[in-house]
């Protein structure tokens, strides 16, 4: 009897975790697993310091180039041009991954920092190379991130410099590639075209890089392409990350709910 009861409980939790928009009852965003992963990561971190450093320096150079060439900044001390009104639609937080995962069908990452740092569910997670995932569970000091390498993940995306929107999904096969679906066959595509986040997403700002077109599959039975996208990120080796908070998310959600209720 005890066996059946416990088996049913665990099977129920298994099915819940495979269902869309359902998070796990037990997850790694808690003090015990968070602390253990953080300590282990403190040791492992040293192995990747050099490449991590190089990546951040490159990002710095790129950002400086943008700043020096932008109209927003007026002098080398990064003084902001008072003539321009800059909207703060997004807040950016910096943190790091303490436990990476990429060899399952549903991958989750554990990150340092939680509710106490202002992290909330559904924040976008990126690094300098591109999209990494979406925040799923948050505790006081730790959070879990649903990786882009998770068969449950759906991210709005488009072909750069065009307005053909689609959805990024993952088929669970190769950690270097994701799939872009729902791009109409009218779209002109070339190998090497950039795929970036679309403007319809409430999680990510527009034009955050994801990957490049690797192969295009045209099905005879549908009017849409399935595109194999090679990720810019090497998801097996990621450390420093940024969390993006959409400041207007609450307002957008309220509006959407009000519209639904009106119908």
């Amino acid at each position, binding site marked *: 009897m*005890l*066996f059946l009861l*416990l*088996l049913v*409980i*665990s*099977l*129920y*939790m*298994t*099915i*819940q*975790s*495979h269902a869309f928009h359902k998070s*796990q*009852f*037990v*997850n*790694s965003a*808690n003090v015990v*697993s968070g602390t*253990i*992963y953080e300590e*282990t990561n403190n040791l492992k971190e040293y192995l990747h310091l050099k490449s991590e450093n190089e990546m951040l320096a490159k990002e710095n150079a790129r950002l400086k180039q943008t700043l020096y060439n932008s109209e927003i900044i007026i002098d080398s001390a990064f003084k902001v041009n008072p003539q321009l009104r800059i909207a703060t639609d997004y807040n950016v937080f910096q943190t790091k991954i303490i436990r990476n*995962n990429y*060899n*399952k*069908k*549903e991958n*989750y990452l*554990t990150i340092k920092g939680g509710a106490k740092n202002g992290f909330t569910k559904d924040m976008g997670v990126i690094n300098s190379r591109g999209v990494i995932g979406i925040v799923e569970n948050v505790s006081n000091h730790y959070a*879990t991130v649903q990786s882009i390498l998770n068969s449950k993940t759906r991210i709005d995306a488009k072909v750069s410099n065009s307005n053909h929107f689609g959805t990024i999904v993952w088929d*669970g096969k190769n*950690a270097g590639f994701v799939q872009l679906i729902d791009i109409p066959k009218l779209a002109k595509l070339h190998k090497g075209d950039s795929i970036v986040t679309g403007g319809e997403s409430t999680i990510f700002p527009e034009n955050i890089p994801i990957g490049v077109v690797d192969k295009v599959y045209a099905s005879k039975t549908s009017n849409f392409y399935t595109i194999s996208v090679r990720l810019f990120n090497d998801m097996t080796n990621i450390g420093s990350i940024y969390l993006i908070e959409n400041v207007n998310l609450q307002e957008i959600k309220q509006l959407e709910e009000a519209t639904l209720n009106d119908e």
Partner: protein
Amino acid sequence: MNSTLIINIFRFVSLLLLQVVLFDNIDLFGFVTPYPYILFILLYPLNSNRSGLILASFFLGLILDGFNNSGGVQAAACVSLAYFRESFLKFSFGISYEYHMMKITDKISTELLTYLGISILFHHLIFYSLEIFNLQFTLEILLRTVLSSALTLIFIIILIFLTKTAKK
């Protein structure tokens, strides 16, 4: 508090820690991970309460599920292994295993290897079927089960061997 209880609590905690800190990080060929933590279930005293084993196995699996964000996959596999352990023991050591009350790890025999092998395969098959949960990947489930089982078996034998030499 008797010594068997203390030994089992120690095994529970140390095997979980080893799994989380060490074995979960092993990623052979990009998809083969060993799970030697189930040694706790396999070595649980033969003469003790079965419900106790089932309950302990459930929490063992559930805690690892928490670490791996995998729902209740490990819990389901561990509870099933705990429930069928007696049958696997009977199959490998013969019907008289209970009367002998032998320590199952006394020597690395064919019987012990059969017992470990069947149990590991059983656990891993349930685990990977539930984790991947997609008939489209049947071949991958079987491949992962077989390769991971082999790796788990190797690590379990090493662990048994290490604890034996430590005692001497």
